[in-house]
């Protein structure tokens, strides 16, 4: 029974592993941390799997568990940007020099996203994953209005880095 459960779980995870890799990509900066976070998320998914009843899609459930794990670890490790104000971060990034090539713009934006706090990062991540506000608010356990407000704020800030 347990072996069957394990087999199904590993199969599902193998098929949907991109989600976990992407969460790792947005929350970590190097390969070692990426691997560590991937393993931690896998364990948390495995622990929570018996409670997964299939009333949501496996991938939707994965988003929730993976993001919660990343957020928890991120908080525990106190690697959060010391409640740094987003504006100061953007100032730091944009003052390093502006270049309007798309590559440079992307670099700046990724750097800005990396500096976001744990929840905002999750928000951007879900947005990049093409999730609508209803899904974002459900996954993160915040209200839809709150998600919209936060997202607009992030968008506005990103615009200011690219068009100073």
């Amino acid at each position, binding site marked *: 029974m347990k072996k069957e459960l394990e087999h199904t779980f590993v199969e599902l995870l193998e098929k949907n592993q991109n989600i976990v890799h992407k969460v790792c990509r947005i929350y970590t900066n190097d390969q070692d941390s990426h691997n560590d976070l991937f393993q931690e998320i896998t364990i948390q998914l495995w622990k929570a799997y018996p409670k997964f009843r299939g009333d949501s899609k496996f991938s939707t459930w994965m988003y929730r568990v993976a993001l919660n794990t990343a957020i928890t670890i991120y908080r525990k490790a106190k690697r959060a940007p010391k409640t740094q104000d987003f504006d100061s971060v953007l100032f730091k990034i944009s003052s390093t020099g502006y270049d309007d090539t798309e590559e440079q713009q*992307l670099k700046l934006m990724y750097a800005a996203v990396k500096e976001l706090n744990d929840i905002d990062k999750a928000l951007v991540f879900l947005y*990049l994953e093409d999730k609508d506000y209803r899904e974002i608010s459900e996954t993160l356990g915040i209200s839809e209005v709150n998600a919209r407000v936060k997202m607009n704020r992030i968008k506005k800030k990103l615009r200011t880095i690219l068009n100073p």
Partner: protein
Amino acid sequence: MDELEILKKDWKRRENDLPHLKASEIYPMLLKKSSSIVKWIFIISLIELSISTFLNIYLTDDQFWLQVETIHLKTITVGIYIINYLITFVFIYCFYKNYRRISTTDSASMLMENILKTRKIVKYYIIYVLISTGITTMLFFIFSILYPPVGENSVEGINWFWLLLIGIAVTSILLGLIWIIYSLLYGILLRKLKRNYKELKRLEN
């Protein structure tokens, strides 16, 4: 165009560069429990050493050494203590090495190899404890009869056959008790490791 849309486009493009793990690589991650089992083996061995050191200090008072001297075993006892501590430290070091190795393992075959190694070392450790306790007990038993306290019966007229039989029986009971304790302490952990090993092997096949 929305800035985040540019980012989204790139994010999607970069999806192709994501690593892809095989099921056989994911499986060991579920077995992270192996590393916590090996950690417990290391912790238990440390607790065991602390308890035995405490008991040694507590029990080896002046009277003990006086008795040991009466049966002409003082030098041997000191020697046994030194050798015993040295060997125990070597085992504890091995347990620590196992723990370090197993917690950094990321391939199923390496994990299997490490599980086997850990099980082997724990078994050697238990065999060592049983043999050393057996030899020490028999040694003390024989010497306390060879050198009885002054005023008591001397060795003459002793039935060595029966005496040896009693000695072996007492030692066997003692070893049996130690074996039961160790089976409880390490046996459960070793069985769990064996189960993990079997799961890994099934997957490899």
